[in-house]
């Protein structure tokens, strides 16, 4: 066995990866950098907007939304939680984080839902997408965090891109699952009455898959929130930035405060999105 193993030279996987990244960077670097600038402007714009809106307005808006979809308890919790964040002077960084989460989740939905539909409808797409999703979900985030820098620079854009990689799989998986779970008889119903592909999709499949897809989006939001801390390593600022600074300076109290703010945001977002899926 041992002698057999020595016959095969060590596979230089690391070297190949480096070469591939270098090559991709040379070929695609300018394009990804240009893309990065556009994205950065958009995300920064969203961050600036959320910070410029008076906190009271946002709190009232979130409370009303929570009340409408999730009930009184969650609305009260939202108000208290958000006031607490203002109190510990983390409002601005929280809004930075929220903007990144919104951007990442928005992109996840934009890419993930159509991909999930395709993978439910087409066996070939399904077979290609599944291993990629496994890869995205299990590859440690740190491993693709650093290679993002040469393509997208430092800052919010690589943070959002890596968040995207980390948080998108459940959207694709659960969209695909939801569509596959539509009972055969209802699919036959649609076909037997002469529905087109898009009529099937919008009148039968998506409405029936709705709660499953929303569960995927809920998962996506949670994963995105947990990723923003890690993404702070490449300059994403926000609540993650505070945590990161706290770790570097061993300032445990500051780290805990930022952590609590993340938890509060997570609970509010989770309860609201969960109940959107349940209602009706």
């Amino acid at each position, binding site marked *: 066995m041992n002698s057999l193993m020595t016959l095969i030279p060590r596979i230089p996987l690391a070297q190949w990866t480096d070469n591939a990244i270098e090559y991709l960077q040379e070929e695609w670097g300018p394009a990804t950098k240009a893309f990065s600038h556009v994205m950065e402007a958009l995300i920064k714009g969203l961050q600036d907007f959320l910070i410029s809106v008076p906190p009271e307005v946002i709190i009232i808006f979130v409370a009303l939304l929570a009340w409408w979809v999730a009930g009184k308890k969650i609305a009260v919790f939202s108000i208290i939680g958000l006031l607490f964040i203002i109190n510990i002077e983390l409002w601005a960084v929280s809004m930075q984080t929220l903007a990144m989460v919104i951007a990442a989740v928005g992109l996840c939905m934009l890419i993930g839902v159509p991909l999930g539909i395709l993978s439910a409808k087409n066996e070939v797409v399904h077979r290609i997408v599944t291993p990629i999703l496994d890869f995205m979900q299990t590859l440690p985030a740190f491993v693709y965090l650093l290679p993002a820098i040469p393509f997208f620079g430092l800052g919010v854009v690589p943070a959002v891109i890596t968040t995207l990689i980390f948080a998108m799989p459940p959207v694709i998986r659960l969209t695909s699952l939801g569509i596959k779970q539509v009972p055969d008889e209802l699919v*036959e119903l649609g076909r037997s*009455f*002469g529905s*087109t592909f898009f009529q099937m999709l919008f009148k*039968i499949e998506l409405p029936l898959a709705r709660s499953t897809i929303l569960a995927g989006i809920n998962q996506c939001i949670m994963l995105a929130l947990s990723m923003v801390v890690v993404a702070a390593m490449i300059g994403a600022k926000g609540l993650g930035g505070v945590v990161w600074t706290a770790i570097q300076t061993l300032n445990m109290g500051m780290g805990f405060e930022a952590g609590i703010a993340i938890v509060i945001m997570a609970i509010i977002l989770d309860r609201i999105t969960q109940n959107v899926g349940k209602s*009706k």
Partner: protein
Amino acid sequence: MAKIEVKNLIKIYGTNTDKALEMVRQGADNIEIRKKTKQVVGVRNASFSVEQGESFVIMGLSGSGKSTLIRCINRLIKPSAGEILIDGEDISKMPSKQLEDIRRRKMAMVFQRFALLPHRTIVDNVAYGLEIQGISRDKRYEQAMRTIELVGLKGWEESYPSNLSGGMQQRVGIARALATDPDILLMDEPFSALDPLIRQEMQDELLEIQQKLQKTIIFITHDLDEALKVGDRIALMKDAQIVQMGQPEDILLSPATEYVARFVENVNRSKALTASAVMVKPRSVVHPKDGPLTALYQMEKYGISSLFVTDRSGHLTGYIRAEDASDIAEQGIKQLDSIIQTDIPVTHPDEYLSNLLEVMAHTKVPVAVVDENNILKGILVRGSVIAGLAGERREFHE
């Protein structure tokens, strides 16, 4: 031209069907084909045609291929070989745009488990077929409301399917199928999931609706009683093949194979057999002008105690009894008029035996079967009715 014509339809499930197709054509049986080619035969060499306005029932046990067959007709399943002509157009080879169009305009399906969309109200479910044709909201609601009323669900149009009982849900399914005003209704075991009582009620209503609308219906069932009740003609399937096809009475009275015979053994024949199927020709009739002695002679000859009286062109006027005839013979009266009894039990040729059994039990004379012009077509005697119910082919009466 037949509304639906199916010619040599074969469906083989699997990825490599050529070899199996060849074997079906050579007459190899299903098990052999599965062993040699790993392909499963769904339908083999089905041929039949259905006329406009006819109810054609395909019946068989589960796995007999009936569901596959009905799905080939609207091509939810693509046949492996053969032709399916709808108004002369072959649907099995049609491009998908044209197929979509035929599905929208000409046929609608009713499903075993109702297949209602849970996120839509009843009226939106019923209007589904109209909606995908791009018909405006007002117009499709108007049309949907008409069929909702037809199936007796007025007042429920704003409810959701989960608020309705099974029977009501299937009414919605039927209303939806009728809303697009298709020529053809494909009904895939529509009442199998319902309680027996509701099922019968729905069958009756279907017959009523059918009388009004005269659709061409393909109806799948595994229940022979239902098949006999609903079908103008019945095709019996076993092992992917149609083993017998014919009118309900043909199947009951002359089963083509041992399998069919066993199938029909336990059916309630009184609900399937009509008077015309078991009536016998009267051995003799007399005319009012005939004398009592002629009548008595006839009765003596055939060993019966009463005779039906008709006029020269066969219209039934009544019957006479032997004792009355001998009375007037003694009195020297030459005409039968005075003793003709008119309180005879009569029925129509299409009446089901189930509706006649009580009359049969109490009458002292045979039941006369007359057509709409009061012409005597035959008579029902207890012996022939019992033989019919027992499943014997009638052979005796002259």
